[in-house]
């Protein structure tokens, strides 16, 4: 070992520590690796993005007479209280009961950090020691005894990018995905992302002091789903909410998905030896992720291609010969500010490095959930003999088919049984009123369809989202091979 944390801290004290940003390091290292390792003491890293697995552990103190606070709400967002009296954990993704996706736990946390007063409502059953049944008041962060940000899964090393192959717009946790490969969304900050600069966990461990939302926080464990083996490490972090700054923490709405918290994390990497120096010299082009098709809402989504962060940051990636624009979901601007601020703290002798008391696992992988019940697929419950009508059929004939079979909509096919549209009883009524005669004029041409190998939960979501009761099931050539209805899903499937 060339240097120790203690020695670097000595240098900080004397004002002699050499601090470099993660984006500056590759060039310095490539020029002369040995000298880089010797001369650079600290590489600062940073990331600022939506981290759903975040929340605050709060203690409110006791009222007189006291209350157990069995259930509590902050600005109508419920917090978890299965803890000791007046302790609560407020999760970032918990939605408010009155404002839905527009306001959640994350926004309450932001309001608290901003010093805004929030409404606290609590209810409980009476006990001999806690006789009170309810309380309602307004509190600020200062009024609380403790308020810690406590985030079990933050700071993903890197994250897979997203694209949408379907013909409808999707709103996912990876943001808004335009139809027909319209855009690529990605998150993470690439070569300046903290865990990409120490992928072997040689310096980051339990007790590592970090920049957390403008405060000094700590790594208290590896994060949930920590998967360093595949390059997807995470950390569990803790910090004092009272010391945080609204510049580095923000409540967010991921449209039609939920709320999330933008968390700012910066980790100083001590350059202890040449290996660590090499890790911090990583470049965007060396960090690759898969670009997944979110049009397939399964655990194993199809990979469209592999991409690296250099391409992602360039603003465009090539998909089957087409240039598709990219959107970052993390803020490079704020991430840079985090690196600068952390560097400034060290320079001002306000921030010293801590030696981890335990290393984080460097070889774990995360496992999927085993579900006992078997997944049901469209093929299992669809009606195979779908009633269809031909495009050339007369309005009268189609109406008769609808009446005879007591159905209210019917897929329209061409002579090869290929789906060309759908007609509902409402379309027929309108056609009669307007005097239209041809099926091809009155049918809806853009039909929502399903495939036989899709899980029925996926189809149930599609029906819900489009407010429709059924969809034709088609094969690769768009030929109708069946129909699936919400009624079938409820009666014969498992989706509730």
């Amino acid at each position, binding site marked *: 070992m060339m240097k120790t944390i203690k020695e670097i801290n000595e240098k900080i004290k004397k004002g002699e520590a050499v601090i470099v940003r993660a984006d500056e390091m590759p060039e310095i290292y490539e020029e002369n690796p040995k000298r880089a390792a010797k001369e650079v003491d600290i590489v600062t890293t940073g990331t600022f993005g939506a981290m759903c697995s975040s929340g605050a552990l709060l203690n409110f103190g006791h009222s007189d007479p006291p209350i157990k606070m069995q259930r509590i709400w902050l600005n109508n967002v419920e917090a978890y209280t299965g803890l000791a009296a007046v302790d609560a954990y407020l999760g970032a993704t918990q939605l408010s009961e009155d404002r839905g996706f527009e306001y959640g736990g994350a926004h309450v946390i932001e309001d608290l950090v901003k010093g805004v007063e929030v409404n606290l409502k609590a209810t409980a059953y009476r006990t001999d020691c806690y006789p009170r049944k309810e309380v309602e008041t307004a509190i600020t962060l200062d009024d609380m005894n403790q308020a810690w940000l406590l985030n079990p899964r933050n700071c993903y090393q890197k994250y897979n990018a997203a694209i949408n192959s379907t013909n409808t717009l999707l709103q996912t946790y990876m943001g808004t995905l335009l139809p027909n490969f319209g855009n690529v969304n990605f998150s993470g900050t690439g070569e300046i992302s903290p865990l990409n600069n120490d992928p072997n966990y040689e310096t980051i461990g339990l007790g590592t002091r970090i920049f957390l939302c403008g405060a000094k926080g700590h790594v208290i464990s590896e994060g949930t789903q920590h998967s360093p083996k595949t390059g997807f490490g995470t950390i569990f972090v803790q910090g004092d909410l009272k010391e945080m700054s609204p510049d580095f923490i*923000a409540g967010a*709405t991921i449209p039609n998905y939920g709320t999330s918290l*933008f968390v700012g994390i910066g980790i100083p990497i001590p350059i202890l030896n040449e290996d660590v120096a090499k890790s911090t010299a990583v470049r965007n082009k060396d960090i690759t992720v898969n670009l997944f098709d979110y049009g397939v809402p399964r655990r194993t989504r199809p990979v469209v291609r592999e991409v690296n962060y250099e391409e992602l940051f360039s*603003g465009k990636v090539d998909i089957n010969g087409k240039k598709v624009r990219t*959107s970052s979901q993390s803020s490079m601007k704020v991430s840079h500010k985090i690196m600068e601020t952390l560097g400034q703290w060290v320079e001002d002798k306000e921030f010293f490095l801590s030696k981890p008391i335990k290393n984080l696992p460097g070889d774990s992988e995360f496992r999927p959930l085993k579900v006992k019940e078997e997944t049901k697929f469209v093929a299992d419950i669809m009606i195979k003999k779908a009633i269809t009508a031909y495009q050339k059929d007369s309005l009268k004939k189609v109406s008769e088919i609808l009446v005879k079979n007591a159905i209210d909509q019917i897929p329209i096919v061409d002579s090869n049984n290929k789906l060309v549209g759908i007609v509902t009883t409402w379309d027929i009524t309108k056609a009669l009123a307007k005097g239209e005669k041809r099926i091809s004029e009155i049918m809806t041409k853009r039909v929502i369809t399903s495939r036989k190998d899709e899980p029925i939960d996926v189809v149930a979501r599609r029906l819900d989202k489009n407010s429709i009761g059924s969809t034709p099931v088609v094969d690769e050539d768009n030929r109708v091979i069946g129909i699936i209805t919400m009624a079938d899903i409820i009666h014969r499937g498992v989706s509730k």
Partner: protein
Amino acid sequence: MTSKYLLKYPTGVADSPVISKTVLKTGVMMNILRANVDYGEATLIVDILGDKEEQKKVVDYLRGEGVDVSKLEKNITNNVEKCVDCGACIALCPTEAISFKDDYSIKVNSDKCIRCGVCVEACPLRALEIVRA
């Protein structure tokens, strides 16, 4: 020279080819940037390709046909207090009105915006707003 205008009219008017008629009558070209026809009302965003006088001619003609016309000076604004410069809005914009500056902050080019609203809906910080016409 071109300027953007927002046109609104009841669908009764929409049954007649009001835009084509206007172009024919005034001899000034128009570019339809966005059209939204609902049951009660049609909303159009057009670029009128002409100088001040020609634009006035078109506007007067449209008003005479019962169309509500307003000039679009400012289309989209970014509330810098709320914006964290994540860039989630950039690739969504059909006219590439939003981009990164060199320092990774967001630049919104209101002139390019055709008020589609996609970015407004997608912004996680609720920092974007379409300016009322």
